[in-house]
């Protein structure tokens, strides 16, 4: 089968998979599209949103649909790195035993690792995740364990700030996307969510989803896809301008109200962040039936890939929620291509 037909074949599967998820989790189409992009670009995803809007259900649906071994852990304030690697207990005969923890339980076939409420875990746990996410390997029991297929989905709610730890910049940077999950705003969808008993039992809802069992082929697919989708010199120039604009937005004419633009940013996008952006843009071009990337692909994923990588000066940090989206929109509106 040629690469072209293989990619077309896979695109149909991906779109079908997206449709399945949209039937289980309704009213979240943009977020679902972004998750699909992250899955096929092999990037980790951080979900942020209010309580009970369907973050966990969405991630469970994705994990169920993808197939592959699935592990889940809840972030708590007393969770320590060792808890992810092993756990010690007394067995029924009263003898102490040590078993593999959630990260190691499935060995190298671990596919989806779901970290619920990641901001409740301590920085030590975040530090363990740094390596696991970037290199897809961890060191335990004096040896390295490779986790080639692992994809981390994490979520945090933005309602509470007590007993939580802000994710360090290095940990945030390892997530390809930070996706905001907002409540659906269509009345029909809200009505459906309230009164259709189908959405009341999430276990059954997700159980009904068919398992596509293509998870372990995704790494190869992603590699083919990244090589096959083309970027023209003009597009590269555009991406470079976008990158520079995340460091010095004032040079591109971006102006926000009540902000001294040269002092706004402490750090712009990292090289890793930009490579994730291009991976996601290529995947988006593929899903849009194209073999070349357009500026609209970059624009489509710019916000989800960049917002969590820009760090504001402490002076402006308290207005983060308002300034960051404005900054992202400003950059997209001011940088021209061609």
């Amino acid at each position, binding site marked *: 089968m040629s690469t072209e037909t293989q990619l077309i074949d896979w695109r149909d599967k991906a779109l079908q998979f997206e449709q399945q998820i949209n039937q289980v989790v309704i009213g979240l189409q943009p977020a679902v599209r972004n998750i699909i992009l992250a899955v096929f670009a092999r990037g980790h995803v951080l979900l942020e949103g209010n309580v009970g809007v369907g973050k966990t259900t969405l991630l469970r649906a994705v994990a169920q649909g993808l197939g592959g071994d699935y592990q889940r852990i809840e972030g708590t304030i007393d969770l320590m790195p060792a808890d992810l690697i092993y756990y010690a207990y007394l067995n029924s005969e009263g003898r102490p035993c040590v078993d593999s923890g959630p990260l190691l339980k499935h060995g190298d076939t671990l596919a989806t690792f779901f970290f619920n409420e990641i901001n409740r875990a301590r920085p030590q746990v975040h530090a363990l995740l740094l390596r696991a996410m970037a290199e897809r390997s961890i060191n335990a029991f004096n040896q390295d364990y490779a986790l080639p297929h692992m994809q981390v989905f994490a979520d945090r709610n933005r309602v509470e700030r007590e007993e939580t730890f802000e994710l360090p910049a290095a940990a945030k940077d390892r997530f390809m996307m930070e996706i905001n999950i907002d409540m659906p705003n269509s009345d029909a969808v809200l009505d459906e969510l309230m009164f259709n008993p189908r959405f009341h039992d999430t276990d059954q809802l997700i159980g009904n989803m068919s398992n596509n069992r293509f998870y372990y082929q995704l790494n190869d697919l992603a590699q083919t896809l990244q090589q096959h989708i083309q970027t*023209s010199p003009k597009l590269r120039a555009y991406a470079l301008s976008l990158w520079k604009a995340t460091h010095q937005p004032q040079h591109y004419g971006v102006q926000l109200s009540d902000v001294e633009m040269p002092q706004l940013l402490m750090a712009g996008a990292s090289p890793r962040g930009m490579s994730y952006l291009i991976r996601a843009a290529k995947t988006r071009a593929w899903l849009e039936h194209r073999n*070349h990337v357009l500026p*609209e692909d970059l624009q489509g994923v710019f916000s989800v890939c960049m917002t969590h990588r820009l760090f504001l000066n402490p002076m402006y940090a308290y207005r983060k929620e308002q300034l960051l989206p404005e900054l992202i929109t400003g950059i997209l509106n001011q940088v*021209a291509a061609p």
Partner: protein
Amino acid sequence: MRILLILILLLPGCSGSINTPVSYFNVETPRPFGYVIGDEIPQRIIIETRSGISLQASSLPAKGQINRWLNLNQVTIKQSGQRYQIDLRYQVFYAPPTVKALTLPGFTVQFNQGENKPEEKMLSQSIPAWSFTLSPLRELVVRQTEQGEYLRPDSPPQLLENTQAWYGLSASLTVTVLTAAYLSFLYGFFPKLLRRTLFKQALRKLAGLSKTDMEQVLSIVHYALNTLNGQPLFYNQLSDFYQRNPQYRQISAKLEWFFNYSNRYFFSAGMITVTPDLQQIKDLCEQCRKIERGSL
């Protein structure tokens, strides 16, 4: 014996004349009356010295205040050979209630004799003091009127002819304003005006380009559309663009074709440009021009 007597009689005459350094000395002064406060009084001193004797300029009074009411405004020395012409210009600041006699103080001018040795006696010539009368500027009898003290103002001076200057100023101001306006137009300080000639300019730039300059052609049209939109315009933002500029909705099909074509040209490989494409882009630009003129 008689000759000896004559010689003896002549000797004192010789010794006397050798002590006078000046062969000619004269002070020229103006009329000694009719001055009022603020008037300048010139005084010219002419001195001719004997050979080998020169005037010591530092012995002249220094420019500046001489006393409470007298100022020396100017001191000029003109020398031609042994002749010195010293011009002094005094100004009086005395406000007398009645006519008053005043005196310009005298002073002594000193001379150098040959190679002046310190032990030698200085030669000098005294300049006599000069008296003159100063009249009050104000009337003698102080009259009071209802408005207060009676003082008649001077007649106002006649104004200089300045029509020419006014013409010159207005002409140069007009030229300046026109130049500034043209410059600001070129720099794009009149966005509204510019927006109405955007496609006119684009058409002018497109005129000389061929299909081999397709990149430039597309960039020119993109630039015009971006400027019209106020920010870069992309294919997926066309619907917002039509909302802000509804008159362009009538050529939406052409605009969409243009954006698709531009996307294919810039971002996908293996695109071949043909002349009809260029013509189509020019047609689009013509139509945009008609819309911006309001004739479509």
